[in-house]
């Protein structure tokens, strides 16, 4: 169902709470809201021209009228420099406080607000509205279950990230108290630089058809995380081999069909496909030694 809003709706006080019988205040409020919204729709158009038209995916398992997913329309006054995140925040603060999405840093470092915007996985805070065709269609990330509105369940993504033993492993580090660091060449640091930029936004995983089909596929982000460690010279050869073993299991690197969509959507411009391919070759090289 489509609801067009111009003004923050004013909530009328309920006439007589006692009369409503079994209806909970929440339900009543919702009903009022629904009717309020449709009325507002008539006055739409005043701000046309300088407003941004958003179509936002809505779903809430608990709230009547939202159990069946729908798109809501919002018309948000445009301001220079406005990002998709700014626009949905405005819609939430001014029109509908139940509009739900994750966000925090507003500067592309926390990875909270990857949405599916006009058919592509993008970070809300890093996407300028002017670059998009209107109406701007904003949906939760595909291939993940929707918890509510734009919020998806990230648990599976986190599980995959954790599955690659994402922590530095080396027993022979010098004692910290001696203030003695492990040496690493600037070249080696440069090699892992891009892979270390991942902000766990999940855009890549969401864009990958293979990850969608095979739930156990580690996915580009987790493989990239493993790449960061496997390519770091500070870890020993033995540990590198251990890492490759994790990566080359059935649902590891071999699953990747080089679709490149992960690389295309990554907001941190990490060359994911390249990293995955490099690991495939590393794994093959290592296995050849066995024969």
């Amino acid at each position, binding site marked *: 169902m489509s609801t067009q809003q111009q003004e923050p709706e004013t909530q009328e006080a309920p006439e007589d709470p006692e009369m409503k019988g079994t209806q909970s205040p929440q339900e009543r409020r919702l009903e009022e809201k629904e009717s309020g919204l449709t009325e507002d729709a008539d006055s739409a158009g005043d701000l046309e021209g300088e407003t941004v038209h958003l179509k936002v995916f809505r779903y809430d398992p608990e709230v009547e009228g939202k159990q069946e997913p729908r798109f809501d329309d919002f018309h948000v006054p445009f301001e220079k420099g406005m990002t998709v995140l700014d626009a949905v925040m405005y819609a939430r603060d001014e029109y509908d406080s139940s509009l739900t999405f994750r966000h925090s840093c507003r500067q592309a470092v926390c990875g909270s607000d990857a949405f599916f915007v006009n058919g592509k996985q993008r970070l809300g805070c890093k996407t300028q509205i002017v670059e998009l065709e209107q109406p701007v269609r904003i949906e939760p990330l595909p291939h993940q279950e929707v918890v509510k509105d734009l919020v998806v369940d990230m648990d599976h993504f986190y599980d995959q990230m954790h*599955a690659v033993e994402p922590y530095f492993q080396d027993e022979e580090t010098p004692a910290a108290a001696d203030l003695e660091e492990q040496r690493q060449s600037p070249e080696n640091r440069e090699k892992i630089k891009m892979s270390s930029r991942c902000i766990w936004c999940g855009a890549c995983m969401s864009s990958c058809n293979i990850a969608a*089909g*095979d*739930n156990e596929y580690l996915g580009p982000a987790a493989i990239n995380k493993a790449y960061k460690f496997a390519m770091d010279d500070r870890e020993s050869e033995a540990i590198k081999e251990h890492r490759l073993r994790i990566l*080359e299991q*059935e*649902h590891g690197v*071999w699953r990747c069909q080089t679709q490149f969509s992960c690389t295309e959507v990554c907001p941190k411009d990490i060359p994911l496909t390249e990293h995955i391919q490099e690991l495939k070759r590393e*794994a093959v090289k290592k*296995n050849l030694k066995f024969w």
Partner: protein
Amino acid sequence: MAERYSSFTPGGTGWLLQRLTAAFLVVVLAFHFFQLHFVNHAADVTFMGTQARMENIGYFLAMVLFLIAGTFHGVNGVYNALVNQGLTGTPKKVVLGVLIIASVALIAQGIWVALAMSGMIY
């Protein structure tokens, strides 16, 4: 999570063979196309002509290898595609079995055909 690491499967072997057969196939397939569509037109194929070609042992071997490589490449490709789509457990084992039987049958039949063509059996 733990069981994912439990067994060491050189998963790269299948992947590598898929690439190697692909590289091989490029060469023979191109040759094959050329032979049977440009040099000799398919419409003019006769048993005699085929027999003449197949009696050359090099050509014969190439075709048999072509068959084996093609079958492996194709069947392995199909299997991978299914596994990629999340085929697991018993169905996966069944599919693997069926595919193996089908490819063995295909290769056996193909070799028999080839032998017949080369006139080695009747």
